[in-house]
């Protein structure tokens, strides 16, 4: 079967810094894949290369077997590739509903029409309401995003992305900054993701990683140092030395 997402020998330099080295990743449909590594390992940069926010110096990105390395970000999104951001990228003056509606309107092609009232796009509004209900955000639908507690804002970040109905979903530290009392809402949302989506999650919280992932890739200094099942990674001495040992929580 062709992989939903594949990177082939991806490489990137920031000046003298070799931030991505020969990264080969492959996610099948329905994959639950965690990407872990110490701060500055190049995890976010890798996501930026995959989505097209940055262009690689070498290597390729394949979506469903098709080479998309030359495609701009928006075109990759149209092919089912969506991401969340490590730092919230929300329209904080707008309501939760409108944040999600912007995304859905874009997917269904309503956003190109400058003559039709936004309020007349009832299918967009209905879908947004449904999505918010699914993420248990419906009580906040009409609230401006900036008034939400941080955990819920992280959920809006996910909701906007799900508005794209992605086939490949990249989650960049979805629980980052969320107080532990609230982190279960993020976990629940991740656990409830549609099964067929291929998910790549970056996360520092090992509880989340080991609960969620079926496969783990460990990145250090831009290169992959280990790949395997959670058990294999937990037992890998090298990984422990580079990374897991630091937190001491595994």
């Amino acid at each position: 079967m062709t992989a939903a997402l594949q990177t082939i020998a991806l490489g990137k330099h920031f000046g003298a810094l070799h931030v991505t080295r020969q990264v080969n990743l492959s996610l099948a449909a329905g994959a639950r894949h965690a990407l872990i590594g110490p701060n500055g390992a190049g995890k976010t940069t890798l996501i930026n290369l995959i989505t097209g926010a940055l262009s690689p110096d070498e290597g390729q990105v394949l979506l469903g077997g098709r080479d998309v390395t030359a495609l701009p970000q928006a075109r990759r999104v149209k092919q089912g590739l969506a991401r969340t951001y490590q730092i919230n990228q929300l329209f904080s003056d707008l309501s939760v509903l409108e944040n999600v509606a912007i995304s859905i309107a874009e997917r269904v092609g309503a956003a190109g029409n400058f003559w039709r009232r936004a309020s007349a796009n009832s299918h967009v509004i209905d879908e947004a309401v449904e999505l918010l209900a699914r993420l248990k955000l419906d009580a906040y639908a009409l609230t401006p995003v900036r008034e939400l507690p941080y955990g819920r804002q992280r959920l809006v970040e996910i909701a906007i992305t799900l508005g794209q109905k992605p086939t490949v979903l990249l989650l960049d530290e979805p629980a980052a900054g969320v107080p532990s009392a609230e982190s279960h809402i993020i976990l629940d949302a991740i656990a409830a993701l549609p099964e067929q989506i291929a998910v790549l999650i970056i996360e520092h919280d090992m509880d989340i990683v080991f609960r969620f992932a079926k496969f783990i890739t460990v990145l250090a200094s831009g290169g992959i140092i280990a790949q395997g099942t959670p058990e294999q990674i937990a037992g890998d001495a090298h990984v422990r030395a580079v990374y897991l040992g630091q937190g001491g929580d595994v």
Partner: protein
Amino acid sequence: MTELLDNGGGSAAARRFMAGREAWHWAEALPWVVAVAAFFVFPDYLALGTQILIAIIFALSLDLILGYAGIITLGHAAYFGAGAYGTGMLSAHLGWGEPISAMLFGGFVGGVLGFVSGWVLLRYHGLTLLMLTLATAIMLKEGANAAEEWTGGFDGLVGISIWPLLGSFEYDLWGKTYYCFALVVLLLCFLAARRIVHSAFGRSLVGIKGNVGRMHGVGTPVHGRLVAVYTLSAAMAGLAGGLFAESNAYVTLDVLSFARSGTVLIMLVLGGTGRLYGAFVGAAVYMILEDELAKLSPEFWEFGIGLLLVIVVLFFRRGLLGSLDDLRARSMGGGA
């Protein structure tokens, strides 16, 4: 908010909320009441009134790109001027002086120029974009200067002869006809602009202005979207230019000048960006003040305008209308 918790009420409440975003407010009747009242109260000032209405249309076109899409420009006169020359040359060289179609032709010329230049310009942003918009208007002006045969060059385009409006309303001494004509055109432009900003397209522009990275991330063809609104804006500026050419029956290089690009920006900032009515307030205040100050002191009126601008940008950051909003919010917050 609690309504959404009610079973099945979610979609209905959400739709009502979205409809509320674009609902008319009673205060929106004010500028039109003022414009109509001015027609009867100040019959001697209708020529100035017409120029104010034209300036509002021009400022409104700028608000579409600056206030909503965040495109900052110092060359918007390029499209106003293109429209003015388009309309003027249609009459002066081809003898076509039917005012409505000639004005629409001005809008068409502005729109085409907006599309072509926008395609290139909008690949850039920030200071680079600012300088490129400026350069575009300068080059267009120099081009118009060089194409003397067509534009009249430095001496201006003469021989514009506009036929009676709708075949019967002559251009009269007090400019009643043109005032009404300009007011109707402004109303139509305003309704169009209001419709545009309240469409899903308009919302996506606000998204681009607020966070362009996220819009790339939800699959927005950002460049195409910006070119589209730039073209609409340029067409509206072209209409204003066409109207300007018709009401003055004379076009000079001044329509393409840097001063005109700067003035329309000042008007909009004065009134407040991203709120449509900022164009009304800004253009009216600027032009009335200019007229009054020029009477007081022909040499120093610009000083007065400059002083006002300083006061507005220092103390009324969001323009006159924005500050009014803030004031209202504060008094309501204090009263509660």
